Structures are given as structure tokens and as C-alpha cells.
């Protein structure tokens, strides 16, 4: 287990839990939750400055020596907008990692597969390390892999819905076929959902809302950390098969009759 590192674009990660930074009630709680989660991959978003209330510098709150900062393109509705955000983000941070999100639909925030592929092709050519957020579409995952994506990030259920893995059959196919790491992103509301993804063989999971809006974000961050570790450990242990009929655990001989 100790040598079980996740490697993305040549960078080693000790933790398979990625954490988002949105919606926390305070930056102090966010910081504590990230620390306790032991996550080494932390997402941020790019937004217009509110000139009347500019707020703090987000990047000061994150230990960037320990954590890879992963800016996202949230809010982008097509490839062009996503590319623009990625370029701005790289200019701002010097970081060429980008979590590509192209979500034209405001109700379910489902990612646009065609625009996501277009943006991936362009951003890879521009030297970005691209981690695209996608619906759980195995064929799209292969196209993105061929286009040079560094991971694929299929959704379990819609962003922030906390409904767990509702795309199981397709995520299983993605995991079976992908040569790049598979990160289950979106919809994981409970540690058991995260353990579920890891037991299926996902390489990592990403959570944000599940931590940020919990009554105790720090405690649930710890629970997610343990669940991800447990799920991974179970996957590596080759779990027992599922059977239709009972298989006695106790010997079927030597009964007292």
C-alpha cells in the first residue's frame, strides 16, 4: 500500500482524494478540511473580481508545496470560453494543470462532450495538463485519452447532488478500458460513495459539496480520507466474488446429528 502512488502526468500523489474549495462557510474551515483530508490535489475556480468587495487571496489559503493546485474552467459553456479561462488561469498562476469543465446546461451541469473534446485537443497542443470532467461515456473517455488528456473524470451523478454513483455500468467500462487514471468526480455525497468508486477500481475521487456543506466539514473530510483508503485497499485485495446462492462459511461436514 505504501508504494501505491497515483501518478498523473508524471507527478506522484500519495492521496487519491481530490478536494474542491467551493461553498465552505469560511476559509479557515476549508483549510482545516483540506489538511485533515490529506488531499494533494485541490481545485479552484476563476471569477471576475467584485470591485466593491475584492475579498482575500484564495491561493494564500492553500499549501501549494503539498498540494497540486488544479484550476477549473467552471462557468464555461463552450470550448472557446473554457480555453480562455484556461489561458487566464495559467497566466495568473503559472500552473498548466486544468480541470476542464464545459457545462452549457445550468440545471444539471452536465458536461458537453463535443466541446470538451475540442477544448482538450486545443489545450493539450498548448501544453496544458488536461483533466476533463465528462459524463460517464466510455467512448468519449477513449477519444479524450487519444487526444492527450491526462485523466478522465466521469461523473457519478450531477455536481453537488450527493446522489452517489448512478452511472455504475459505464464507469466500470471506463475503468476497464482507460490507460489514463480515472477520477470519479461529482455527485459523491458520502464516504461510502467514495469507497464504492475506489472498490470499483477508480484511481481517485473528487469531492467538494459533500465536505463544504456538511455540518462538520473537517470531520467528514477525515471520513472521506479513510473511505478512499479503505476502498483502494479493498480493490487491491481482490474482493470475493458475488454469488447467487449461499456458500456456507462453516464446514459442511461433522454435523451433530
Amino acid at each position: 500500500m505504501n508504494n501505491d502512488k497515483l501518478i498523473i502526468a508524471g507527478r506522484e500523489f500519495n492521496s487519491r482524494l481530490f478536494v474542491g474549495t467551493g461553498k465552505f462557510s469560511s476559509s479557515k474551515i476549508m483549510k482545516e478540511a483540506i489538511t485533515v483530508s490529506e488531499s494533494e490535489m485541490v481545485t479552484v475556480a476563476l471569477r471576475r473580481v467584485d470591485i466593491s468587495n475584492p475579498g482575500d487571496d484564495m491561493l494564500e489559503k492553500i499549501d501549494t508545496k503539498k498540494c497540486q493546485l488544479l484550476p477549473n474552467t467552471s462557468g464555461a459553456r463552450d470550448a472557446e470560453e473554457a480555453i480562455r479561462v484556461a489561458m487566464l488561469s495559467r497566466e495568473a498562476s503559472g500552473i498548466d494543470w486544468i480541470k476542464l469543465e464545459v457545462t452549457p446546461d445550468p440545471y444539471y451541469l452536465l458536461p458537453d462532450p463535443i466541446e470538451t473534446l475540442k477544448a482538450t485537443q486545443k489545450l493539450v497542443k498548448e501544453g496544458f495538463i488536461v483533466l476533463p470532467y465528462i459524463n460517464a461515456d466510455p467512448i468519449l473517455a477513449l477519444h479524450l485519452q487519444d487526444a492527450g488528456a491526462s485523466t478522465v473524470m466521469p461523473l457519478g451523478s450531477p455536481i453537488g447532488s450527493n446522489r452517489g454513483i448512478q452511472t455504475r455500468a459505464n464507469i466500470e467500462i471506463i475503468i476497464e478500458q482507460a490507460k489514463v487514471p480515472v477520477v470519479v468526480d461529482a455527485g459523491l455525497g458520502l464516504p461510502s460513495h467514495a469507497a464504492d468508486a475506489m472498490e470499483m477500481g477508480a484511481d481517485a475521487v473528487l469531492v467538494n459539496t459533500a465536505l463544504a456543506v456538511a455540518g462538520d466539514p473537517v470531520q467528514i473530510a477525515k471520513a472521506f480520507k479513510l473511505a478512499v483508503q479503505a476502498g483502494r485497499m479493498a480493490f487491491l485485495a481482490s474482493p470475493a466474488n458475488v454469488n447467487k446462492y449461499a456458500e456456507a462459511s462453516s464446514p459442511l461436514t461433522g454435523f451433530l446429528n
Partner: protein
Amino acid sequence: MAELKINGNIRKYPSDKFPSLLSDLISELNLDEISIIAEVEGAIIRKDKFNQTYLKDGMNVELVKFVGGG
């Protein structure tokens, strides 16, 4: 009078108060130059060029920064 379009909103200046450089605008708005990312007329401006980027009446300026997100 002169004006700039900042993050989609018009901001008017008496001609003698118009910020002539991007760095002047950022300090006039009390923003921290380190955390700001700027686009002028659709072009990304590198931080080390903030004090060499001249602004003119009617220009479109976007000022963005990192915030929490998933």
C-alpha cells in the same frame, strides 16, 4: 469625462483622474496586484506588464482572480 468598461460595468472618470496605466487602475481600486489576473481588450496582460500597459477611453478591462471552486 472618460470611461472604462471594467468587468462589464462602465466606470466614468474626470479626464484628469483617468488611470493611464493598468497598474494605476489596480491601485485606484485597492486591489492586490499579486492575486489579480487582467485582460485588456481581450488580451491577457502578464503581471510584469501591468505598469507598461496604457489604458485609453472606452477600453474593456477584465479583472479576475481565483476563488473557491470544485
